[in-house]
């Protein structure tokens, strides 16, 4: 996750630069993608990727930073009610940033291994918990299609129970809201902005096609790290 301190922000005057520095508030910036916007075609169009990254993810980051600055101010002033009021904006925009940062890593062009089923310990764990790789995909497709309105469907590993689970979250709730010991392996965005321009209201088709560009190598690395 890209982090940098407010100190480096050009827009701030010298006084506020100093002011921010002593408080050490960090803000977030848009992470780069490891592939071109058009590299996931035909599964996901370049137009969707570009808007999704440059507009949607950027807006979550902008509003997250804004909310964090306001929270910082509120705490400095001892203004508890404002601090509490900011929580929903922080959860939504911070969640949007966290979720999308994972999502970009979950995708890879077919030429770079996107869609290749996982081998090693993750592949084995999937067979053990879901019966087969195909059954896992079918389960995630069903759960993802069933999300009302906007949200996410996840393949996660429960670090304590050492087992794989499929979860859904509403809106931009991050996976951690479903359990502190859950680590996300694959998160699929089922907001309309993730597929509308290409798939209109046929979310199941989007879900069916996205598996062609899922980066299982990344998911395996996380799995091996979280569940050695």
């Amino acid at each position, binding site marked *: 996750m890209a982090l940098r301190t407010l100190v480096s922000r050009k827009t701030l005057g010298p006084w506020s630069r100093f002011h921010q520095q002593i408080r050490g508030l960090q803000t977030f910036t848009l992470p780069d993608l490891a592939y071109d916007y058009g590299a996931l075609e035909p599964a996901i169009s370049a137009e969707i990727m570009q*808007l999704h990254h440059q*507009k*949607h993810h950027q*807006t979550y980051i902008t509003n997250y930073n804004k909310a964090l600055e306001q929270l910082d101010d509120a705490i400095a002033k001892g203004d508890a009610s404002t601090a509490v009021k900011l929580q*929903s904006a922080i959860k*939504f925009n911070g969640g949007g940033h966290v979720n999308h940062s994972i999502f970009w890593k979950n995708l890879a062009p077919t030429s770079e291994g996107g869609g290749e089923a996982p081998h090693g310990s993750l592949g084995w764990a999937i067979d053990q918990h879901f019966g087969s790789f195909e059954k896992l995909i079918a389960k995630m497709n069903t759960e993802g299609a069933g999300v*009302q*309105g*906007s*949200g996410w469907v996840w393949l996660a590993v429960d670090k304590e129970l050492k087992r794989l689970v499929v979860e859904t979250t*509403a*809106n*931009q709730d991050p996976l951690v809201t479903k359990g502190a010991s859950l680590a996300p392996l694959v998160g699929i965005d089922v*907001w*309309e*902005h993730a597929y*509308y*321009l290409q798939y*209109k*209201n046929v979310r199941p088709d989007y879900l069916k096609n996205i598996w062609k560009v899922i980066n299982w190598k990344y998911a395996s690395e996380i799995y091996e790290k979280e569940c050695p």
Partner: protein
Amino acid sequence: MSWSCSNYLCLSSSSSSSSSLISSHELTRVNSCNLSCEYKEQRRKDPINIVAYNGLKPPSYKLDKPQKRKNHALKKPNNISAYYSLKPPSYKFDALEPYMSKRTLEVHWGEHHRAYVDTLNKYLSKNDVLYGYTMDELLKVTYNNGNPLPEFNVAAQVWNHDFFWESMQPGGGNLPILGLMEQIEKDFGSFANFRQDFIESAMSLFGSGWVWLVLKRNEKRLAIATTTNAVTPLVWDDIPLLSLDMWEHAYYRDYKNDRVKYANVFMDHLVSWNAVLGRMARAQAFVNLGEPKIPVA
């Protein structure tokens, strides 16, 4: 300001708070009654059907008001394939250009709205218990005290979209007229305040949902409400007067992620204050908004 048109409108509407949709739903009920009689007739002649009919499994959940079943659940004939129809907007698809594109309406009405209608009909063909409810009853029962059944999400979206199409009109925008403006000024301070509240509420939604202008029955005042996903204020017994679809599919083709612009354009160029006025007049059959005006003798 008195509502000179309200009596007339009340006479022509049914005793329900929904909009012009009623007529088509009532029709559906009438049809289903007729068909139901035919069915009973047929069943007498054809005992095999009885076995098949009685063999249907009851749903795995309990209805919130089981006694309603006796009153409303009609015997379902086997040959019904559609219960609700996809009602087209009262204007042409290109009539809201350039503020809402023809393509947006074609997809939003022709695919999203249609899919909600189709899925609802599919549910109703499988769920004997919900068969025969009016739309309002169906929404209240399937809302299930805030734990919506799958049927709720599609039924409410059918209702919401019918209501949304008629919340807009070509050449909309402008300002509310007559007593509606007075009521808005009374309850929001000014029209500008109302407008700002409405747009800020739209921006406060963290996901898919709707913004509404409602008339609150008990408080006897106008209010702005937001609902998430498919929820409609009908389930809280508020009377909806105006709605704005804030699902991404409603604006994505025309405005991408610029929700502020979409909401502002809706207010400036699309909202049908005529429709709101008519709904308000009907609503006043249920909510008394002021002292009656007694003509001077």
